């Protein structure tokens, strides 16, 4: 099992980096974890421009001049966890809604008609509302209509993930939120999510179940982002060694205003976020890097081709929000409100190809 290194030690290691270690990391062909630490350090801040150039070169060489696109569908905002930063937290007095299978399919078909081939099904943790049977049923309904159906829901057992894989789910995203064990405890007040280790072991269970892709990440704004980046590097490194036939992605959710008046514990600026993205790109040339509509249009446009490989677009974070624009109780408010077409126009104007389809349901169809 993956043992997350002590968070304070990671912070301390990063702060020891010097400009020499940054320059060495910038010139290395294959980076090791100590190089990642250097690139995440304050000593690397003056090198942000060089990091952007390297990150861009690597990303374009490995992924081409392309940006993949997807959209989330929020299935349910019922949640039994009390997480102080989340709009769906059980404590919040919001209108709760769980889409029926028909409603969920209708939402999906709206996205389908808008041109999306890759959707991400999202839900709060409420196994009575959205459990394995529900997820299996919705996967079976959608599998032939989309090239790829990913999920971002509560952690499950290997067996349940395998059932979902057979039902057509291609990828699972499960973020640790924070690798800082102490802070994790203080922001996850109760519910199954308060078990740090069970969550930490989830990406391995996903991979073991045969899923094609596993997404990891941290919610930026809870703890020292530099140490989160290094912890992600450690986690990714371990996962790659154990599950060499699995593809991995990293997401960078930066805390946005949400219901419940929770203020980020740490400020993460756009420069910080960029440094984190560039550092992880230099560290791992093959990992998919995802920037969602949490970020503003200006930032996302600027970052095109510099490291990220996948963007969400036209997102609504409230259950039923695509069919009913009055739907409220969103998980967080988005920063980029443009439609898929508007985002694609910018991608094309930068000389990049917007990629809607990068998988095929035929890979997972059983005959």
């Amino acid at each position, binding site marked *: 099992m993956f043992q997350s290194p002590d968070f304070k030690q990671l912070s301390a290691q990063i702060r020891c980096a010097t400009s020499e270690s940054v320059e060495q990391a910038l010139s290395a062909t294959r980076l090791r974890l*100590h190089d990642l630490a250097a690139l995440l350090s304050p000593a690397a801040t003056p090198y942000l421009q060089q990091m952007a150039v*390297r990150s861009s070169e690597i990303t374009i060489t490995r992924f081409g001049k392309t940006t993949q696109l997807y959209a989330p569908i929020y299935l349910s905002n019922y949640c039994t966890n009390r997480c102080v930063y989340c709009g769906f937290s059980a404590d919040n007095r919001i209108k709760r809604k769980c889409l029926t299978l028909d409603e969920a399919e209708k939402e999906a078909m709206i996205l389908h008609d808008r041109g999306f081939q890759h959707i991400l099904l999202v839900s709060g943790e409420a196994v009575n509302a959205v459990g394995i049977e529900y997820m299996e049923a919705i996967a079976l309904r959608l599998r032939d209509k989309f090239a790829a159906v990913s999920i971002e829901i509560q952690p499950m057992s290997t067996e349940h993930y395998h059932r979902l894989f057979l039902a057509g789910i291609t990828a699972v995203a499960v973020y640790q939120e924070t690798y800082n064990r102490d802070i994790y405890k203080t922001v996850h007040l109760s519910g199954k999510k308060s078990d740090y280790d069970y969550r930490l072991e989830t990406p391995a269970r996903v991979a073991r179940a045969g899923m094609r892709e596993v997404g990891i990440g941290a919610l930026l704004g809870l703890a020292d982002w530099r140490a989160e980046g290094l912890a992600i590097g450690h986690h990714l490194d371990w996962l790659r*060694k154990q599950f060499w*036939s699995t593809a991995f992605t990293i997401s960078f959710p930066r805390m946005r205003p949400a219901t419940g008046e929770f203020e980020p514990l740490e400020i993460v600026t756009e420069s910080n976020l960029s440094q984190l993205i560039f550092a992880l790109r230099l560290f791992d040339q093959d990992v998919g890097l995802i920037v969602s509509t949490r970020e503003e249009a200006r930032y996302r446009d*600027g970052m095109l081709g510099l490291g990220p490989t996948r963007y969400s677009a036209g997102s609504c974070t409230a259950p039923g929000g695509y069919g009913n624009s009055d739907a409220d109780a969103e998980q967080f408010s988005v920063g980029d409100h443009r439609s898929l077409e508007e985002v694609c126009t910018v991608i094309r104007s930068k000389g990049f190809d917007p990629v809607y389809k990068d998988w095929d349901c035929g890979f997972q169809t059983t005959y």
Partner: protein
Amino acid sequence: MLCIAGTEFRSRLFLGTGKFSSSTVMAKAIEASDCQMITVALRRVDLENPDDDIMKALSQREYTFLPNTSGARNADEAIRLAHIARAASGSSWLKLEVTPDPRTLLPDPVETLFATEKLVKDGFIVLPYMNADPILALKLQDAGAAAVMPLGSPIGTNQGVLTDFQVAIIIEQARVPVVVDAGIGAPSHAAYAMEMGADAVLVNTAISVAGDPVAMAAAFAKAVEAGRTAYIAGMGQKSKHASASSPESGQLSSDLGFLA
């Protein structure tokens, strides 16, 4: 310290015992190399005979013996040899070699993987000799190999690490030790493999056929140590990247003026 299947090795140089002009020269060369892991061809040695030349010459010091299945043309033959060796020696260590082509002695990936799966189940500590194929290395590791031994170039050719690009991928991905085996013809080749991050190298011909095998063994020991130290120290890169990040060549649009 290098650790394979729970056994620690101070020296990262493994030696083969073939082609020496005499057992005495072999023993002296091994001593000069300071190595702790020695591979012996099962077809050359009589493990049950205490008067066997090779075993007798090597009995004075504590070595980990790594019997190899050199000569086996398929998995069945290798598995049979392995069981015979274990019955005679009591040791489960095995360097698995399956080489159906007697001309090139290149390893058969399909039979090697099959034999590894079977021998691991039978309780052997298997170190398979393999072509420098990263996917095969991962599959052998998943099958339970205690280390993988990709070739630098065909055995006995002294060509050096011609497979360096592939070996680098194997090193990067492996969670078991990587021992570069075969083709290492000069101490500089061994140092190069170690600088790349190999956990150890196995050398035979380059030492056994050298003008002075004992001196050459000592030279290899120094080269392996130097290469390892350089790897740990973190090598500076020749890198084209430094120039790529200079202003003149920064053709890519990576202006960060958009940042808030």
